[in-house]
């Protein structure tokens, strides 16, 4: 109990500490690939520290919703992060059915983020909120068709056990897992508002989803939002990296090695994807998401009939 608990605490601290670094690395990769020098890798930390010391400005029409929403966002991200395995360590929150809690805790964050956006009473935020609600709806099935299907096949319903159960001893299962990881990647891109669904770097209101929702926030509120979006990106990165744990012969040191190399490799992949794709038109995003869902369904059906 004692050691597992300690490991769980360390995992969550690692996630919280390294999340901005991951985002910084992705941006750096992207800058290099497009021929720029780019901001330093530690830039997200600098920005967070800067925001920390800024004055908070609330919109005149806003209410207590926009005051509490950033807090709820960050805390629920941390709780969600506490369910994910880092290396081969058992996460601090791990029980039967935590996969449902994971999905719904992220839903809690989203619920309040949408409300906070609508709280401003400006059409820009409204636009972002409506888009978030719509796209999140299509993103939900992808999560359950990938992680959920592994769970139903293995018979486990705790995230740690689900990833633990993946074993590469059967070709059709291997293919199944690989395709699942692709679907999860597409999901991660959507949920973390990266290209080709959303562009985290533009600041033109009409084209954004996540950025436009936090348009009227500043100071500590923006700090909380930014930090939770970094953690969210890292959470989805971990969901993706965890697919590679079966290679590690189930030892802790190799698990940690995979965690590190996996994260770095993923920043490369994200950087490349963001460089070679452009953002889709808003109209086409549901199609993109339904495509990912369709991959999930097909993959599941193929696996069921070939195993």
């Amino acid at each position, binding site marked *: 109990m004692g050691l597992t608990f300690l490991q769980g605490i360390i995992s969550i601290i690692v996630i919280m500490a390294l999340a901005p670094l991951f985002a910084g690395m992705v941006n750096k990769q992207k800058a290099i690939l497009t021929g720029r020098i780019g901001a330093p890798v530690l830039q997200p930390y600098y920005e967070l520290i800067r925001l920390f010391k800024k004055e908070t400005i609330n919109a005149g029409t806003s209410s207590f919703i926009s005051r509490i929403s950033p807090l709820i966002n960050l*805390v629920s991200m941390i709780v969600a992060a506490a369910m994910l395995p880092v290396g081969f360590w058992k996460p601090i929150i791990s029980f039967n059915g935590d996969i*449902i809690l994971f999905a719904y805790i992220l839903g809690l964050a989203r*619920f309040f983020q*949408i409300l906070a956006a609508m709280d401003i*009473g400006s059409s820009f935020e409204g636009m972002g909120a*409506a888009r978030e609600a719509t796209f999140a*709806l299509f993103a939900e099935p992808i999560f359950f068709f990938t992680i959920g299907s592994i769970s139903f096949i293995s018979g486990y319903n705790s995230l740690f056990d689900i990833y633990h159960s993946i074993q590469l001893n059967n070709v059709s299962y291997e293919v199944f897992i690989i395709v699942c990881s692709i679907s999860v990647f597409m999901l991660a891109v959507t949920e973390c508002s990266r290209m080709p669904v959303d562009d985290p770097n533009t600041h033109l209101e009409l084209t954004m989803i996540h950025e436009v929702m936090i348009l009227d926030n500043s100071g500590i509120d923006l700090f909380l939002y930014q930090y939770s979006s970094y953690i969210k990106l890292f959470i989805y990165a971990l969901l993706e990296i965890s697919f590679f744990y079966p290679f590690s012969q189930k030892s802790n040191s190799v698990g940690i090695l995979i965690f590190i190399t996996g994260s770095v490799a993923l920043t490369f992949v994200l950087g490349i994807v963001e460089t070679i794709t452009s953002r889709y038109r808003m109209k086409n995003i549901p199609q993109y998401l339904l495509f990912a869902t369709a991959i999930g369904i097909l993959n599941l059906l193929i696996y069921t009939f070939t195993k």
Partner: protein
Amino acid sequence: MNDLADPGYSLFIVAFAIQLLAIVFLSIRNERTALFSSSIVLVIGLILGLISTFSSALFSSVEIPGRTFFSNWIRLDGLSIYFIFIIQLVAIPTTVSGISYLNHYIDQKRSVKSFFIFYIILLISTQFVVIANQTIFFLVSWEVMSMSAYLAMILEREKEEVQRGSFYYFAASHVLIFILYIMFFLLHHQTGSWYFSDYHLSFSSGIVVPLIFILSLIGFGIKAGFIPFHFWLPQAHPIAPTVLSAFLSGVIIKMGIYGIFRTFLFLKPVPEWCGWLLLIVGMISAIFGVWYALAQHDIKRLLAYHSVENIGIIGIGIGIGFIGSANNLSSVQVLGFGGALLHTLNHAIFKSLLFIGSGVIYRNLGIRNIELMGGLIHRAKYIALFFLAGSVAISGIPPFNGFISEFIVYTGFFKTANELKNYYPILMLMFVVGLAFVGGLAVGCFTKVNSVIFLGSERREVKRFHSSIYDYVSLGFLSLLCILIGFYPQPFVGVVNKVISSGFLNGNSSSALINIDWHYFTLIFSSLAIGIILLYLLKLKLEKKYGRRTSAAWGCGYENLTPRMQYSASSFADELNTIPKTILVYQKEVEISDSPYPVSSGFESHSKDFVDYKIVLPLFNFLRSLAARIGFLSQTDIRYYIAFILIIISIYGLIAFLWV
């Protein structure tokens, strides 16, 4: 009378007597005093009833005896006590909120005494429905319940929409009662008894038992509001006085669920197709219920459609339970029925909360169209907070109670897949995805409702917003229950588990429900709450240090933002509503002129109910045209009718003669 020796039981009788006594207080001449004293007496009666329910076996550690009273007419088994608990629990806050809500009718010089009499009769007859053990007693209570609800519903009977909506309810109730007559006639025919406790049939024999099952599903399904029998809900709920709609949506439609459970107890174990039928009907109700809700602008109609969604989720739970029953798996049964029963309680709590909240808004603004509201959070902070609690709970978001029951249903899916293997994992996964999709739609719907009603700035100026102590008490009580069940579900889960153990299972009892790691939820949710509070304190400190001010919202450089420029409910939901356009009968009317100068233009969007618009109305129009064709038979002279009667009688006589 040995029965009266039992203190819990005599308290039960006293509670009913006091509730009936409330009618007497309505004879006070002054409307306000009459209403107030009658409500207080009614609430006292209900609280006494709740105390006697709490002292019953369901809430203690002893086994539920399932005793019968009054020469078998009344029976208190686990299911009855559980439902009577729900009725009393919800009736207390709705009655309390009624004190302030009905006063607003008195302000308009409208008498509410007749409404309140029917309301009291409704409360009592609903309690009779769930404790009845005798078929005729059950049917009479059922009919009194339906009709008193109808009579209470037509308080504003001069309005056309009230006539229309209440007629839907009236017609649906009557179709329903005929189906129930046939069903109970068949039950009596098969068993030769009039008592529920004697009804034990098994599916193995003949066509009659499946017929009984289907009839119960249709009959009770109309009451519960499963798609495609839901069409009366969105018509009747908006026009009823809000006190009544809260009770209708919170409790009365649950009587349909009670009926389905009761039929299950008659027919158990059921074959597997029953489970699949309920799963599919439930899933369709859940998805389209919430999708219709998303397209509505009328707050009460929206909430009515949300009831369809939640009834769907309850149906899904019952379906899993049926599959467990068919395969003799106690653990699956416990999880499926447990999810359904707990969701019944949860939905009763948050739906009455939301309806009472909408009543406070309607009372002050006089409108139900959410497109004209906005910014109410600045006027009524606490009402907004309570409404928000209800919204989060109904969307199934942790840490509130809706999540707990949905979690049990999810666990039921996992358990079914694990126990039955084969092709079950894939099928169950489809339902998991469906339920997750419903959750996503509900989030979209309730963020829309909350933000358009409460957030931003007022789209239409509100002159005065008054909320009374009664509103705070009833809403606060219900919100607390939402939080309590969310944070500490063990006792409620224990009660539900006990209900199921007393007669639902055909095998050994299973601890699958109580063995879910509930303490994790308490732990996680408390740390979530503590984390938020600590962070809030930190935030306050930082804001003190580095400053905080308010300023105008960013308008892209444009300074004169008006409330009308805010994102509206239809624009928020437009993208989602366009997807199932045909089923939602979703229409947009846009008026844009080609003139190069700015002229006035308009936009309107509405959705009609597919079943109502494409099936029910055409069917009745067809019947009407058919009736018109034989209209020539309708004469003013009575002698024609006598001739018709004679002809018919002679035809019957001839048939009877030939038959013998």
